[in-house]
Structures are given as C-alpha cells and as structure tokens.
C-alpha cells in the first residue's frame, strides 16, 4: 500500500487543485455583456442585409433552424437550433427537419413550422420588391413545405452537399408567419424573434440593448442578464474601450499591434482568441487584357510570391496569416500543407519558383522591367500592407508595378465589374466555411458575376457542379482538389494571397464564447457568461 501512497497523495492534491478550476468554469448567471460594434445596422432585417453590423447586435434576438456548434472552433459542425433533428432522403433531394416543441416568440406565441416556412419562403422566393441578399444560394430548393406544425421539408431540384450549411446560415432568422403575412417588410424596422434575448432599445449612433428572455426554450440559458452593443467606428476608440474596460469585447477582430497593446496594458485581464478567418484577398488578372490573357504570365505572378515568408512577416503587422488554398486551413475540405506546396507559387523553394517565373515571362515575350498598374481598394487593413507586399514580390522577378488605390465605395462599380484594370485586388469572405459558398465566384463569367478575372472555363464549371452534388465527403474532397489545381495551378485564373487571421483580444471575464473562422458566426450569446 505504501508504494501507492505518493500516487494517492498526488491524485488527492490534483483533485483539490482542479476543484476551483472546475468551479470557475461553471457558468455564472448575471451581468451585462458590453461589446463594441464597428458598424451599424442599415435595417433590422437579417434576410436582406450583409453586414456584421446587423448580426452582432441582433443575432441574440433570434434563432435559426440549424446553427454551427458554439464550441466548434472550425465553424463547420452543424447542430440543431430550432430543429431538433433532421434526415435526408436516400435520393438526397428531400430534407426533413423536426422542430422543437414549446418554443415561444417574444410576444408569447408559439413558433411552428408555418413560421419556418414563411421565413424561408421570404428568403428563397421573396415577393416582388423585397430584397433577399442570399437568395442565389438557394436556387437548388424547389419548395419548402410544412406538413405538420413541427415538421419542415425542403425539396431540392438536385442533390446539394451544401444545403445543410446554407440552412445553418446565421442570417436565416426565423420570423413570425402572421407578421410576415400582414407586412412582409415589418422586420426591416422591428425586432421580434425566439432568441435568448429580447429587444430593449436601439439608439442610432450610440448603442443597442437586449435583456434576458426569461421564457427561452433552452432551459437554463442565457446566462447573462442582458447585453449592450456600443457602436464605435474608430478602431483606436474600440481598443481604448476594451483597454479602459468600458467594453468586454469587439467580435469582429483587432490587428496584431492592437492585440499587443491590449495585452501589454491589461496582462492577464485580457484573453486572446485567434483563428484563420474565412476571408481572403485574391489577385484578379483581367483575361481580356494583354499580357494577362497568357497563362504563363499569370503563373509567373503567382510564382513570384514567397507566401511563407509573407505569412511570417505580414502577420506581425496585418490581419493576414495562413497560407491557404480554396478552403480555410484546418477545415474538412482544406488541402493539407504538403499537398498545397505542389501548386504554383506554394513551393518553399522560392529561388526556384522565381527563376521559373522569369523564364515564363521571357517565354511569353514579357520584357524585363515590364510595367503594369495594380489597382487596390482604398481600405487600409489589410489591403494596404498586402498591396505593398505584392508589388515588392513582383519586383523580385523584374516587374515594375505601379499601384493605384481606388476609393472603396467606387472600387467594385468602377474597377472590377466593368473590367477597368489589368491586375487588381479582389476579396472573398464567407459567413460559414462551405466550399459551395467559398468557390462559387470562380465559375465562368457567364455564370458568376463575381468572376472579375473575366474568363470562361467549362471544365472548372463542371468541377464546381460535381463537388456540389457529390454523394460523400471523400468524393467531394477529390473534386475540390481538382478544382483548386485547375484554378490556381493549371490555368491560374486567380490566385490567393494570404488567408485573413481573426484576432479577438477580450476581457478575461468573458467566458463561453469560442472564436470561429467567421465573424458572422456564434453571435447568439446564449452560452456566454461573465465571471464577475
């Protein structure tokens, strides 16, 4: 027995020390979460808007049919929100959702399948004159049906691997059918959902307040008494609010230097969460302008980039970090780093890549010192540092690039859409990591209006359809890899710079919130609590 005594003592001590830690991790009720929001809601209707300025203050008032697991850092694991369970028919064209019973709207009425159907009809088949921002993502849906009060059925035109992710969209708030029937635009100016917090007030330019919903269907939640979203546009003022402990958190993200200043000022009072961000700056090359119609030239531009050194350097000064292909690193369909290195511009042997780039330029008849204008969007972070980095990288292969910065509001209308550029910065940002949403823009210009490189590639279009209709994950993965290789290596229609990196330094008092690769996800705040 004596032999085991030290082990027993250690076990007892460990248990004693672990006790308080476990107690600390037990959610505490009460308190008001205060967070800064850098943007304001243009309207209150999540179905029509696309800014996080709507999601951050308003998502706590609503539920969606599915949601991403609030504890899943990849933001890809779907769990039921108002749906208790769901099944897919064998043909992959019918999805049946069973709803939770006893879910009440904030006005006391019960939520049923009629409300889900009415909400999705508004999203997928909006009446004339009613805007639905993501309507195009549901073209596969033939009909939404409500056979009984607690069952909703989605009938599809063809099998779609991305349907569940689309249903898990954080924008698809469930509205009350009766209200929509009377006035389909009522939700543009009013708030009334089934979420963990009820609406108190919105003072434009100042704040948004929500308070605990005592009748919330998820018993025991939420933990907070309420929350206050404070609208602060200036990033220095947001940092000052967190530093001065006037705000617990800002959910969109801070730059590395802002993180460092907060950590330096507050030490253990600050907890930093970071994650690859489902946003990326892309380089679009206008296929209708010479010499960028030549894939050797496009390939040379990508080969010139030392992405690994860029990642190391730029992550110190900008919100970019990961070297990535068409999917966020670490997510189910992302290409593993070793495989990624086989693509043009992803090799770790930069000298060899640049020699190849010079050879390709020479072969394509592009003289040394060839100059072109690179158009960039007039947004400082991270467009400016990434733009400077790109120009420097292209200098290394003998190109002389001039940068023209175009005012952000005019950029898409005057530069990208009309094709008024040679090489330009483009942007892609997803609200959930899902290949269909992340790569749809790269289809031929006749299909995708967001294809600013202005090419037609039927093979790429076919690969897009194949991955979207693939029966299982492995098959889908295979098509995504083929798509990625064709896009970034064989044809180099576009290329990726560096994946954005989301950094959230927040008050250590905030618990129960997990960062994800999207600043649109995980904003219901039902699981969030404050230590004091």
């Amino acid at each position, binding site marked *: 027995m004596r032999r085991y005594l030290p082990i027993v003592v250690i076990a007892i001590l460990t248990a004693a020390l672990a006790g308080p830690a476990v107690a600390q991790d037990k959610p505490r009720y009460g308190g008001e979460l205060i967070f800064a929001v850098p943007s304001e809601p243009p309207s209150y209707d999540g179905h029509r808007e696309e800014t996080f300025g709507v999601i951050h203050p308003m998502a706590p008032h609503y539920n969606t049919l599915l949601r991403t697991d609030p504890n899943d850092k990849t933001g890809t694991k779907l769990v039921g929100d108002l749906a208790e369970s769901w099944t897919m028919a064998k043909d992959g064209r019918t999805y049946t959702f069973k709803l939770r019973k006893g879910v009440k709207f904030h006005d006391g009425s019960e939520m049923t399948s009629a409300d889900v159907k009415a909400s999705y009809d508004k999203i997928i088949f909006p009446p004339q004159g009613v805007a639905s921002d993501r309507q195009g993502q549901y073209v596969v849906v033939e009909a939404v049906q409500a056979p009984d009060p607690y069952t909703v059925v989605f009938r599809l035109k063809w099998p779609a691997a991305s349907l569940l992710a689309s249903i898990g969209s954080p924008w698809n708030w469930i509205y009350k059918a009766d209200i929509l029937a009377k006035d389909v635009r009522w939700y543009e100016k009013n708030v009334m959902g089934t979420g963990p917090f009820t609406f108190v007030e919105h003072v434009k330019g100042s704040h948004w307040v929500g308070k605990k919903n005592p009748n919330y269907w998820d018993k025991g939640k939420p933990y907070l008494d309420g929350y206050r979203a404070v609208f602060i546009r200036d990033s220095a003022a947001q940092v000052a609010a967190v530093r001065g402990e006037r705000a617990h958190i800002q959910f969109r993200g801070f730059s590395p230097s*802002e993180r460092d*200043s907060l950590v330096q000022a507050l030490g253990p009072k600050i907890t930093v969460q970071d994650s690859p961000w489902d946003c990326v700056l892309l380089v679009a090359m206008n296929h209708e302008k010479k010499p960028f119609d030549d894939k050797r030239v496009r390939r040379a531009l990508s080969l010139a980039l030392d992405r690994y050194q860029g990642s190391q*350097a730029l992550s110190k000064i900008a919100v970019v970090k990961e070297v990535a292909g068409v999917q966020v690193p670490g997510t189910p369909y992302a290409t593993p780093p070793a495989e990624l290195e086989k693509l043009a511009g992803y090799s770790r042997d930069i000298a060899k890549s640049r020699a190849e780039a010079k050879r390709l330029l020479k072969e394509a008849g592009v003289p040394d010192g060839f100059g072109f204008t690179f158009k960039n969007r007039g947004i400082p972070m991270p467009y400016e540092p990434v733009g400077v980095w790109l120009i420097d990288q292209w200098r290394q292969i003998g190109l002389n690039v001039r940068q023209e910065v*175009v005012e952000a509001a005019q950029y898409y209308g005057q530069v990208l859409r009309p094709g008024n550029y040679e090489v330009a910065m483009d942007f892609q940002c997803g609200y959930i990591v899902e290949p269909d949403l992340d790569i749809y823009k790269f289809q031929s210009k006749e299909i995708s209006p967001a294809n600013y490189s202005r090419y037609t590639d039927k093979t790429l279009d076919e690969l897009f359809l194949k991955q979207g209709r693939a029966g299982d994950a492995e098959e889908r993965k295979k098509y995504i890899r083929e798509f990625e290789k064709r896009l970034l290596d064989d044809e180099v229609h576009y290329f990726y710079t560096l994946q954005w990196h989301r950094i959230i330094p927040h008050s250590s008092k905030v618990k129960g919130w997990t960062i994800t690769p999207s600043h649109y996800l995980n904003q219901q705040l039902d699981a969030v609590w404050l230590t004091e």
Partner: protein
Amino acid sequence: MAIRPTSVTEVSGIVSDRSWLTEVGDFCRERPLGAIGAAVVVVNILVSFAANLIAPYDPLATDYGAMLARPSGAHWLGTDAFGRDVLSRIIYGSRTAMLVGFACALIGATVGTVIGVTSAYFAGRVDLLIQRVMDIFLAFPLIILALAVVSILGTGIGNVIIAIAIPMIPRAALVARSSALAIREMPYVDAARAAGYRHQRIILRHMLPNVMAPYLIMLTAYLGQAILLEASLSFLGLGVSEPTAAWGLMLRGAAVQFAEAAPWMAIFPGLAISLAVFAFNLFGDSLRDALDPRLKTQ
C-alpha cells in the same frame, strides 16, 4: 596698339553679377531667418536631385528580417513595417515633395497671375465675371477643394498636382489682380494701348513683368502650402500611392498603428515635413519683406 572697347554686355554682366551677390549678401545680413530658410530650401532641392547618390538604401527594398527596427548604425532613422529604411524613404520622399511643391506652386501662381492680370486689364464685365468665378472657388478652404478634385480625378502624383494647383489659382488671381489694377492706370500701359498693341502683348509684355514681385512671393508661399497639402492628401490615402516614397504617406497606416512601438516611423517624416514647410515659409516671408517697397522704405 589697338584697344578693344569693352562691350556693353560684358560691362553689364560684371555689374549684374556683383549686384546679385551683393543683393544676396544684403538679404542674408538683413534677414538671417530668411537666409536660414533659403539654405534649408536649397539643401532640400539638392537632396531631391541627388537622392540616388546619397540614400543608403533603395527606398523600395524590403527587409522582412529588419521590420520596425529602431534607429541604429545600419539604419540611422530605423525601418518601417516592411523593413524599408526610413532615412532613404525620407530622402527619396523629398523628390515627391519638391516635384509636387514646385509643380503646384508654378501652375497655381502662374495661371492665377495671368487670370488676375487679364481680369484687371479688361475690367468691366469680364472682370466681374472672372472675379465671381474666383469667388466661388475661394469660398472653399484649400484642403476641401483639393479633396473634392482628387476624389473626382483619383489618386496619383499627376492628379494630386492638379488637385492642389486648382485651389491655388483663384488665390493667386486675387493678389495679382489687385497689383495689376494699379499698373493698368500707368501711362506706359495707356501708351501701349494708344500705339495699337494687341491686348495679349500689353498683358504679357507690359503688365505681367510688373507683378513679378507678388508672383515670386506667392510662389514661395505656395511651395510650402503645396508640400503640406500633398502630405495631408497622402496621409488621408488620397495622394500618392505606396510604394512611392512620400512624406505624408510615411505617416499613415503602420506609422499610426505602431505609433507607440515604433515612433520613429512617424517622427522623422513629420520632422521632414515641418522643416521643409517652415523653411519655405521663412524664406517666403523674408522675400516678401525684401521685395515690398513699402516695407523697404520703413
């Protein structure tokens, strides 16, 4: 032995050389601050011309191993967020400042003076019309008008020069007109008219040379203003674009972001702007005092 008579040109050359040196000497003695300003201006101009000879590094060359390096023997004024040498960028930035400064001041003062003199010469309805148009432009502060122009034309050095020069034109026109109004009544202008000279000749050959003093003063005053405006526009992201070395551009982006951790990124370009503008203003003020006959008599 034949004595070669000294030509008038030779004599006048000697006389004018001496008088020029004397003038400079008098200027330095009487207005030492102006002389210091002039010296800084000359140094600025020389640096901008010889940037490629004196800059220790290529201003565009990045060194990711030396990002945000503090001032040291290798980098006297430190490096920026991309590891670019701050001193080299300041030296090359003087090219941008001088180019924009001189171009804007020349265009603004010259076009404005021609308009002002023309307006004064014709008087009547022409004068009224020109002055009301100038009044419209004068109603806007310099920076607001420059911002409006650059937002229409877009960024880049060429557009920045136009954007800054345009608001200077009405200001120069106003000053030139007031001087030209007095000249217009001079007997030699009447004589030129009576002799049947064309308006163009009278304006260019008889009136414009007589508003040279205010023109020169405006030129020096506008130089400083133009440098400051260019820096302001670049700071706001509406001026020249990266990676061009420009003082105002050096003050934005990472310089703001790392103001606490790497203050040298903002301090030294800021000092360069202040010094250049201060020097041009000192020189301009002294030049005005020296050329103003009323101040001379005092």
